[in-house]
């Protein structure tokens, strides 16, 4: 019980006391049936494992409520913590996809910024100005706006997909059975 309480440290107070309440009930009823505390604790399994599972659920739930970057990262981290296997199967694709999303944003924003660069060039070196630069930069900026809009939707899609995948993964990898 004490171990579980310690393992649950990462939870907010309210959740934590609720979880502990459930387990206290379990212990009390077990004792009433004439089992010893050791027996009950043994069949419950590792407190660390239980806490990990609950923490993952909690984290994923936070992302669903409010998908900030921090929440997403913590959820991914919690899911990875479920098993070594997940380091490969979650972390790899996650880093890859985040890079793609990030790259998309950088491209979009840089494209939009090109007319500014042309203006800078006019100020710094007015004698090299040609109209082609201006037209072309406006074209690129238009493209940039399209890319950015696309990325906006893409990111949303990515986020939703990620949440769904984390849920699925947590369900699959989560321990649960005796003698895993």
């Amino acid at each position, binding site marked *: 019980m004490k171990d579980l309480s310690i393992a649950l440290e990462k939870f907010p107070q309210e959740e934590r006391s609720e*979880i502990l*309440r*459930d*387990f*206290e*009930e*379990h212990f*009390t*009823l*077990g004792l*009433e049936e004439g089992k010893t505390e050791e027996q009950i604790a043994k*069949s*419950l*399994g*590792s*407190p660390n*494992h*239980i806490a990990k*599972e*609950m923490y993952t*659920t909690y984290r994923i*739930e936070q992302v669903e409520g409010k998908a900030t970057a921090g929440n997403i990262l913590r959820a991914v981290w919690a899911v990875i913590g479920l098993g070594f296997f997940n380091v490969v199967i979650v972390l790899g694709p996650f880093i890859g996809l985040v890079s793609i999303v990030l790259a998309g944003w950088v491209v979009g924003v840089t494209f939009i910024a090109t007319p500014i660069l042309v203006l800078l060039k006019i100020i710094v070196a007015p004698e090299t100005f040609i109209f082609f630069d201006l037209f072309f930069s406006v074209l690129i900026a238009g493209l940039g706006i399209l890319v950015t809009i696309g990325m906006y939707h893409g990111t949303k899609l990515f986020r939703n997909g990620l949440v769904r995948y984390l849920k699925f993964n947590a*369900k*699959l990898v*989560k*321990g*649960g*059975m*005796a*003698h*895993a």
Partner: protein
Amino acid sequence: MNVQFKKGVLELCVLVLLAKQDHYGYELVRKISDRIAISEGSVYPLLRRLNKDGYFSTYLKESTEGPSRKYYKLTDEGRTYLNDLLQDWQAFTDGVNQLIEEGV
């Protein structure tokens, strides 16, 4: 038995038990562990998850002896979910059983 395999089944067991009547946590754990070898602690995370997904509601009920007990009650949403799971399970076991019959 294979770990992955039993995990999904545990969810099904909990839902099936609750479909008949409301239960409290300890009761659920005992009923399941009487039949299959589970690590009992994992039932509670499962209950929490299903509760948060809206498949259960909970209420506390005083008992004549001992502490008040937290009862779990299946919601309509939970019932729909259970029916989906049962169908999957049926199709799955039918398939496996046929393969076994052909094989042995």
